[in-house]
């Protein structure tokens, strides 16, 4: 019981520790506010601009979510394709790695030209940046499926698809969730970065605009808001994961 309490409060303890370290670092290194504002200045900015920050956050949040949704779907499908055929694995993997090494900001101008300024480039950037980790883990899950487990279904005359759905996916589910954690962070990065390039809304715009006015506390308030949104999404997935992959985490209980 005590242990469970500790676990519940663990994230808050960590946040508190971080804030203390942050304040302390800023104070001991005497970092000027225009470079690295402390938590207090950031909190003030958060409070003073709560209204506009809220509006911009909502924009970033929903574009990120749409992009993330597309990314998850694409990552799953491509992971499926890459993971279940040796030929596709060898053909696509290097290319996908190459593609993903390209900073996605480089594509934003092209997206803006094609889709106009607004939410679409942000959504697409979030999407482009976040599908890869999902793909990689899904593909790895499928490619490392134990033949013994596969045989359980194959012996029933199951089609490849059945094998993947009934064995491949469940087995790689813990890693699928792991990849979601990476992907959601990247999706936020993608949306924000896209907003800095061409948008009048979103946390990316807010940060750009605050930055150009040298209001670093506001910039940091934006960063904090992104972090918090990502953490909320993480908590959501963590709950989902707990329900769906309890079987895989059974070892932990006895640790």
């Amino acid at each position, binding site marked *: 019981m005590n242990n469970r309490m500790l676990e519940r409060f663990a994230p808050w303890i960590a946040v508190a520790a971080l804030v203390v370290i942050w304040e302390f670092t800023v104070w001991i290194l005497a970092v000027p506010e225009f470079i690295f504002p402390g938590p207090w200045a950031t909190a003030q900015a958060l409070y003073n601009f709560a209204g506009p920050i809220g509006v911009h956050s909502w924009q970033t949040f929903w574009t990120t979510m749409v992009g993330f949704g597309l990314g998850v779907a694409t990552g799953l499908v491509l992971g499926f394709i890459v993971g279940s055929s040796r030929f596709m694995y060898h053909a696509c993997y290097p290319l996908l790695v190459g593609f993903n090494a390209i900073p996605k900001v480089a594509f934003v101008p092209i997206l803006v030209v094609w889709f106009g300024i607004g939410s679409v480039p942000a959504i697409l950037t979030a999407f482009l940046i976040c599908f890869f980790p999902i793909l990689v883990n899904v593909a790895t899950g499928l490619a490392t499926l134990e033949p*013994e*487990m596969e*045989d*359980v*279904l*194959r*012996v*029933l*005359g*199951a089609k490849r698809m*059945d094998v993947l759905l*009934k*064995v491949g996916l*469940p*087995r790689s*589910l813990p890693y699928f969730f792991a990849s979601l954690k990476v992907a959601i962070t990247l999706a936020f990065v993608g949306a924000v970065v896209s907003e800095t390039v061409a948008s009048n809304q979103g946390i990316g715009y807010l940060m750009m605009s605050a930055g150009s006015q040298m209001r670093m506390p506001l910039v940091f308030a934006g960063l904090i808001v992104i972090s918090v949104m990502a953490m909320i999404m993480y908590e959501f997935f963590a709950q989902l994961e707990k329900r769906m*992959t309890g*079987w*895989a985490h*059974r070892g932990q209980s006895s640790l």
Partner: protein
Amino acid sequence: MAEQSARENRVGAAQADREAPVAAATGASRPFVSFQDVSLAYDDSGNAIEDISLTIDEGEFVAFVGPSGCGKSTFMKLCTGLRPPTTGKVEVDGKPVTGPLKISGMAFQNATLLPWRTTLDNVLLPLEIVEPYRRRFRRDKAKFVEQAKALLRTVGLEGYEHQYPWQLSGGMQQRASICRALVHEPRLLMLDEPFAALDAFTREELWCVLRDLWEAQRFTVVLVTHDLREAVFLADTVYVMSKRPGRIIDTHRIDLERPRGLEVTYSEPFTNLVHGLRAQIGEIRGA
């Protein structure tokens, strides 16, 4: 005793409302599985099994015995199409085997239950895959669950339906795995040492369960076992395999009258058969 017969009745009842069993070949026999000069080499270390030629009739119950590592599980893989032979030809139901069959059920040597599914869901798995159950799975789910539960009850797993495999003991996992092999009433049932992890009594009880199912439906069964009494009690034909590379070195027809009760295991013809087999296998190993 009373408990046992009650169990048998329940099995029978579960059977009654199932599909019409495949033509029971009481007398007229039809080749169902045929191996012609089949060999398989997993890698360049030589053949795992070699020059296997045999025919299994539809509705026949055959058993394979042989020393550890001789290729019994390999034979199972060939038979269900999980592996293609390196040379030779495998035919099932008149058609060459090119990939996994759709008419077989298999209990693997190690239980290989899926850890993310409860025992019940593991047993239901074939019904989600194999036609015609698959098509009706959503609609008739309640009925299928009942069937699966009845099956689990016959192997003594009542009350464990919603446990996960890792919450079961080794023998319980193996029993669940047998249920999974049976639930979709396959025409070809492959059992790879299905009772190895069970105590003598549970084992004999399950012999009877299997015997009754088989008597009722007359599917074709291939059983691998190290228990010669088991082989003789259940099978029509016992194949004896040699050390690796595994070859069929002898074939025993078991002519004990059917249906066989457990008392037959104390009869002299039975013990003679078992001892005969035992001596033969001893020779193989010595060779």
